[in-house]
């Protein structure tokens, strides 16, 4: 255990229950001044709950939270919390306000004070420019409702950076960022911790990033602290995964083992200017790079918007789908990357969420009694543990909700499945399970097109990868045998 010298916050024996479910069962956690601290644990381990309690947006059960000032003297909770900034996993953005106002409005504590507009704009620009100067110059006055998910993520981070906080809690901040933005964020965080004594708590499921950025780690599992402040250098990846209770059952089947002979179905060909990709049934095509380029390809494939850039052709398919509904009916499935806003139907129970696509594809008029069994089977196949299929999705963790989205297409005879970041915010074990599912769907002849900002997972699972550079242009195709991290980083313009 690394001793906490000069702590900013210290949590002891924290508990928290929601009704009969106890989420935290006695967590210890402390952060020293000027350190970057990785907070690790599987989905549902209690990380986000603890963060909410530290910031005061959830109440605590038992236990103590103490805040300290730079001299080591205790602070009141209110004083301490005023110096904590959070980047929430589910973005806390105000869509009708401008980017600048989203960054600076929360910093005002008193309501009856004048808004200092010029100062606000300068502060917002400065913070945003630390992560992406070009985006900052272009977008300060745009409304947040017009931003993409990853731009929204940058606004969130800029807000935390500009808050003047002594402790920043980042709950999976890189889930929506490209590699270039991530590396810029990391260098900013490192510099600030060094120069200003800022403390950072970093939650992520990406092992490589954790190693890049963090000094010490705390591992939480089932609401208890398993590892309390250990230097990351003392733990191997395997040890960390084991401590998190994330050892996956089996994931030996590599995609190379998929036997494509005898798979029925028409190939799919995608064309853009001088680039042509022909995908035979069962192929897993990875799409890498900043969101701008992949987004055009994805919308062309699923009929979500009028993307004229790409030509998609397949025997029996129209040149372009008029709507996602038509695409689904023709056997082209789509799992959105914006789970919260465009994926989960929050007010409907699990069963309706799982069966949503099936109902569209089958065009059934009445809801049959067999659906219930089908839903239970699907949940079992995905090892989703839900108390009841009539519960709301909110009762499940983020990773489990992601599985519900995949379940929509599992077992349907679709010829194409387009996935946007299916492993966002998902823990290591669930990730492995999702890879397994993707392979499984491919093995039935479904063509998979899979966009991810995590290059490592594309390299692990895909047969081919099409890369886009930062300008949104397709920069090359890599075949399985030529795949390497360096090659992919180079093509996506993110070589560091």
């Amino acid at each position, binding site marked *: 255990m690394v001793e906490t010298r000069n702590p900013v916050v210290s949590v002891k024996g924290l508990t928290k229950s929601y009704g009969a479910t106890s989420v935290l069962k006695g967590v210890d956690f402390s952060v020293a001044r000027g350190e970057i601290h990785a907070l690790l644990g599987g989905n549902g381990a209690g990380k986000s709950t603890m963060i909410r309690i530290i910031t005061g947006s959830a109440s605590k059960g038992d236990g103590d939270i103490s805040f300290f000032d730079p001299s080591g003297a205790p602070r009141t909770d209110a004083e301490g919390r005023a110096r904590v900034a959070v980047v929430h996993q589910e973005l806390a953005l105000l869509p009708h306000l401008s980017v600048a106002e989203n960054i600076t*409005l929360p910093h005002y504590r008193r309501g009856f004070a004048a808004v200092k507009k010029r100062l606000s704009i300068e502060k917002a620009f400065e913070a945003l420019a630390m992560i992406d100067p070009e985006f900052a110059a272009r977008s300060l006055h745009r409304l947040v409702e017009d931003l993409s998910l990853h731009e929204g993520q940058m606004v969130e981070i800029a807000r935390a950076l500009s808050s003047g906080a002594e402790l920043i809690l980042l709950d999976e901040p890189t889930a929506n960022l490209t590699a270039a933005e991530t590396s810029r964020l990391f260098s900013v965080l490192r510099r600030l911790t060094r120069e200003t004594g800022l403390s950072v708590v970093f939650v992520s499921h990406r092992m490589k990033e954790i190693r890049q950025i963090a000094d010490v780690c705390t591992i939480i599992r089932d609401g208890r602290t398993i590892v309390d402040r250990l230097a990351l250098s003392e733990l191997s990846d395997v040890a960390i995964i084991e401590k998190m209770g994330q050892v996956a059952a089996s994931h030996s089947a590599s995609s190379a083992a998929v036997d494509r002979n005898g798979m029925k179905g028409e190939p799919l060909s995608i064309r853009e200017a001088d680039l042509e990709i022909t995908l035979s049934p069962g192929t897993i095509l990875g799409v890498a790079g900043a969101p701008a380029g992949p987004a055009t390809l994805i919308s062309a494939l699923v009929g979500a918007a009028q993307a004229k850039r790409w030509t998609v052709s397949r025997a029996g398919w129209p040149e372009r789908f008029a709507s996602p509904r038509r695409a689904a009916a023709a056997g082209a499935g789509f799992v959105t990357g914006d789970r919260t806003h465009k994926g989960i139907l929050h007010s409907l129970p699990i069963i309706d969420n799982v069966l949503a696509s099936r109902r569209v594809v089958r065009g059934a008029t009445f809801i049959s009694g067999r659906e219930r069994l089908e839903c239970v089977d699907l949940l079992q196949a995905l090892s989703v543990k839900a108390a009841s299929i009539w519960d709301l999705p909110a009762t499940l963790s983020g990773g489990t909700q992601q599985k519900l989205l995949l379940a929509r297409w599992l077992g349907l005879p679709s010829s194409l499945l387009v996935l946007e970041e299916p492993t966002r915010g998902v823990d290591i074990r669930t990730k492995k399970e999702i890879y397994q599912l993707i392979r499984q769907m491919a093995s039935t002849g479904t063509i998979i097109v899979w966009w991810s900002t995590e290059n490592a997972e594309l390299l692990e699972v895909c047969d081919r990868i099409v890369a886009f550079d930062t300008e949104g242009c397709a920069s090359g195709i890599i075949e399985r045998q030529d795949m390497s991290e360096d090659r992919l980083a180079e093509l996506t313009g993110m070589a560091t």
Partner: protein
Amino acid sequence: MIPTSTEEARAVEPSPQATRNRDSLLSAYRTEIAIAVAMVILGLAVGSQVPQALSWGNFSNITQAGAPLIIMSLGVLLVVITGGIDLSVGSVFSLTGMVTAQVMASGFGGITSSLAGLAVGLLFGSINGFLVTVAGLAPFVVTLITFAVAGSLAFIVTNGRSMPIPDPDYWLLNAGSIVPGMPNYILFCVVLLVAIEIFLKKVVAGRWFYAVGSSAAAAYLLGIPVKRTKFFAYVASSLLSSFSGLLTISYILNAESTAGASLMLQAIAAVVIGGASLLGGTGTAVGAVLGALMITVIQNGVNLIGINSFWQGSVTGLAILIAVLIDRFGKARRSAG
């Protein structure tokens, strides 16, 4: 604290484009300018049929008839920006008039009676605010309840009789003008418009209204006092419709239990015509005032041209439709370009 001169920040100075995007007055009030233009065109169209429509006397009629709606619309706007709705404003308007007249009839002076009337607004605003924020009920349901209750109380106060105002020198309107040459109702409208517009644009608490309406969940996570903001909006809305009720009885010199019955829908219409979204997060005071004026101009025009006044509702409906379509069309084009 984050140091201000950082390598990254120094690398790129604020580009001229960032400065150019800075909302000029013209683009900030795009919707409002469009309504104003539409209103002028409408006025000229009516004037071409009935020349007296463009007379000074008619302008004065329009402003006098429109003042109560303008003030009420400003209140409704505050609630709508936070993502709520206030259906009780018309009933509060009526009840305020009845209570004020009744208190006055019992021998109290103008000021005391007016304060009693405003107390109605404060009470119902607090009830609305309490039920929406603390009890967590839906604004539509809460204000539907207070709409019904205040509406029935307006009859109960005098057993349904209308009440004459016994004090002819009632201070609000008839006792001269506070600013020489300007009728008081215009003064009230202008002062409230300017105060609310400045509050919404330049005061932190005003920006909180938009933040709460934009996403209450996000605003809560960001430490913005969501409940306090909503509560304040309902109290302000009720108080403004109360004030509007006072203003009305002060020049009609008569309080009716049904006086505000048609005003609630008109106020919501005014806010929508003015560019606010009923989903919250958008809207300006200038827009709401112009929306209220637009509705008044339509009613006035229908009267002057001599169309059966039963058509008023249909014409107003058409105006709302056109306003909303223009807004939507404009937005679609903006995001496409």
